């Protein structure tokens, strides 16, 4: 940089250079470290500052830039950048393998992906907790026409506490994934009623009225994912409901029980059953129950080969 540069111009250049330094370091950290709102927040906000400084930098250097843009290599450089952008956007296998080296799941706390081999869901709400659900597709799975499915958590009283994956492009969840839809609606309704009445959600739902000695359950996902109290186990479970449109077979539900105090690193989900609407309980409320799979199921059983839940939690 020439020493005769005006102070304003040199100040802008220095600010641009230093902000770029912070941007670069925070970008590398965001890639290699588990997700942290501090690092990602720093990277994003300094990025906005950097954009403003770049605008000023461009204004200070219009002469140089004008000359650069008149050179023939401008198209080559533009082409290189556009090619890289396209490559990183579409993420072919080599790019994905590089991304898989990242310790961060991105700015979102979960990520869902359909691959050639199956479905992959990753959930990392905290640096100390990483959940991955890998579903290997079976012979009945058609990648061109993937089935609908939902992933959610239930507490030990079998109440929905959190939907991890909401099916996309689904107009009628009640038909395609009735069990998840029933559970989620019940939870939302109870939350509304609890808010209106000022009651606790567990009290509103009358958790475990019969089996009094059985552990009542929290409705706060944090109590399961990163419990503060590790003296007493508070089990919960993860469920998948999957349904192939147009196969004339009911959806299927797979589940696995998880110990919140000492979760196993690897667990396979078990096929639990298929949902069926009950006649209605004594209060006339809508009730769905699961039934054991019978001989009416054929291709639906081949949608999933196996489903592996991996939980890595800081001990």
């Amino acid at each position, binding site marked *: 940089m020439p020493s005769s540069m005006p102070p304003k111009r040199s100040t802008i250049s220095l600010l641009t250079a230093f902000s770029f330094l912070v941007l670069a370091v925070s970008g590398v950290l965001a890639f290699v470290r588990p997700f942290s709102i501090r690092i990602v927040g720093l990277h994003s906000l300094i990025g906005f500052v950097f954009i403003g400084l770049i605008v000023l930098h461009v204004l200070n250097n219009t002469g140089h830039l004008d000359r650069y843009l008149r050179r023939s290599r401008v198209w080559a450089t533009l082409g290189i950048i556009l090619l890289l952008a396209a490559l990183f956007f579409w993420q072919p296998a080599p790019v994905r393998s590089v991304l898989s080296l990242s310790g961060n799941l991105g700015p979102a706390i979960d990520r869902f992906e359909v691959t050639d081999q199956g479905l992959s869901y990753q959930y990392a709400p905290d640096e100390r907790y990483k959940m991955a659900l890998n579903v290997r597709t079976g012979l009945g799975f058609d990648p061109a026409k993937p089935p609908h499915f939902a992933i959610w958590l239930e507490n030990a009283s*079998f109440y929905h506490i959190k939907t991890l994956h909401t099916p996309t492009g689904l107009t009628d969840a009640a038909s395609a994934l009735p069990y998840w839809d029933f559970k989620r609606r019940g939870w939302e309704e109870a939350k509304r009623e609890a808010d209106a009445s000022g009651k606790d959600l567990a009290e509103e739902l009358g958790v475990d009225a*019969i*089996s*009094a*000695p*059985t*552990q009542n359950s929290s409705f706060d996902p944090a109590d399961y994912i990163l419990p503060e109290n590790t003296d007493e*186990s508070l089990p919960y479970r993860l469920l998948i409901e999957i349904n192939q449109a147009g196969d004339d077979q009911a959806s299927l539900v797979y589940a696995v*029980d998880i110990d919140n105090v000492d979760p196993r690193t690897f667990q396979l989900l*078990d*096929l*639990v*059953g298929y949902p069926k609407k009950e006649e209605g309980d004594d209060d006339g409320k809508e009730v769905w*129950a*699961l*039934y*054991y799979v*019978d001989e009416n199921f054929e291709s639906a059983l081949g949608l999933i080969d196996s489903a592996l839940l991996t939980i890595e939690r800081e001990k």
Partner: protein
Amino acid sequence: MSNKIKGTGRREFLQSGLLGTAAAGLTIASTTNVSAQAPPEALEPEVTNDVDVLVVGGGTAGHVAAIQAARAGAKTMLVERGAQLGGASTTGGVSFPGLFDAWGKQVIAGIGWELVKESVELDGGKLPDFAKVPQRHWQNQVLTNQFLYVLLAEEKCTDAGVEIAYHEFPQVVTKTEKGWTVDCVGFGTKRRVNCKQIIDCTGGAEVVGMLGFSRLREEERQPGSYLFRLGDRHEPGRTRLNRLYVHGADSTNSRTVTVANMTGRKSILGKIRKEGKRITHLQPETGFRESYRIEGETLVTVNDYRSGRVFDDAISYAFYPVDLHTKTGVKPKPLKPGTVPTIPLSALIPKGSTNIIVAGRCVSSDQLANSGLRVQASCMGMGQAAGVAATLAAKAGTPPLDVPLKEIHALLREHGQIVPGNA
């Protein structure tokens, strides 16, 4: 693990006539080996019965064992210390027997199911749909009317030809050439029963204890439960009752049972005063979850139970979570999908014995396995199997373990039971 009776070998001891004095100091973890005190002298009988099979205890396993033995052609007598049959299902108030199903299929049927089904249907009740996945294991327990069950159990016993002796209990058991002589006492009654085979369905293997065979008992046992109902009107037998834990409940003898019952009732009275509610139902006595278990030819461990081990000599299925009640309550540990434990015949045979078999919660097992095995449907399954084994043994003049397994399985199937394996 060895277990020697002081001063003599077991076989010699058993053949020495009047039995009972024994002691053993064997300990497995917190499990203690105990035996009963010496019995009184033999009594001069007022009544004498000569039968093939004597069933002691008319509870969950006993009445099924007696019906099975009689239906299979054995001359059968049933001695019960109380005034009615059914045990935990009736006197204990646990009128929701289970579990007869596992993973969408029925795994225990036979005489126990026949009684449960008939009592529900006659009472206008509803049987659970076994095709439905229960969210909790107890959802597939069958709600029965305990009063109706008492009537039906008695009718089926008498129809089968079982001679019932209520309010009596064995005092002295003597080995004979053909089997056993059992002296029983009731109020105003002294009875001598000469039998070929004994089925001990006393819950705590009381006859096995009198004979001096090794039994197991935990230092800290699961609490008993006293069942009652406060407040609203209810349909007796068709709704679940309230439950009050009686910690330290001990069914060893009439004195400890008295203490347990009085403790439970006192607590319930305190509850009535505290809550200001009317009492609308009270069972006559405490239900005991755990007391003595035999040390059998085979011991069912919790690993056998959880893994669903199919024993070579399996005679019935069992299905229930590992369900250990403690001072802080219970956290049932469900079995893995598809797992259905089995019960071997050799776990019903006291180690080193001949011509005696047990059925019910005293099955040879460790405490955790027993917490799942002790439930009513499993006890009914054991009772029926013991009834078959004792009958065939009485007919053949052999110990129950020497009866070919194929014959036991075939007779069980003939009487509607579901049998593990293909023997």
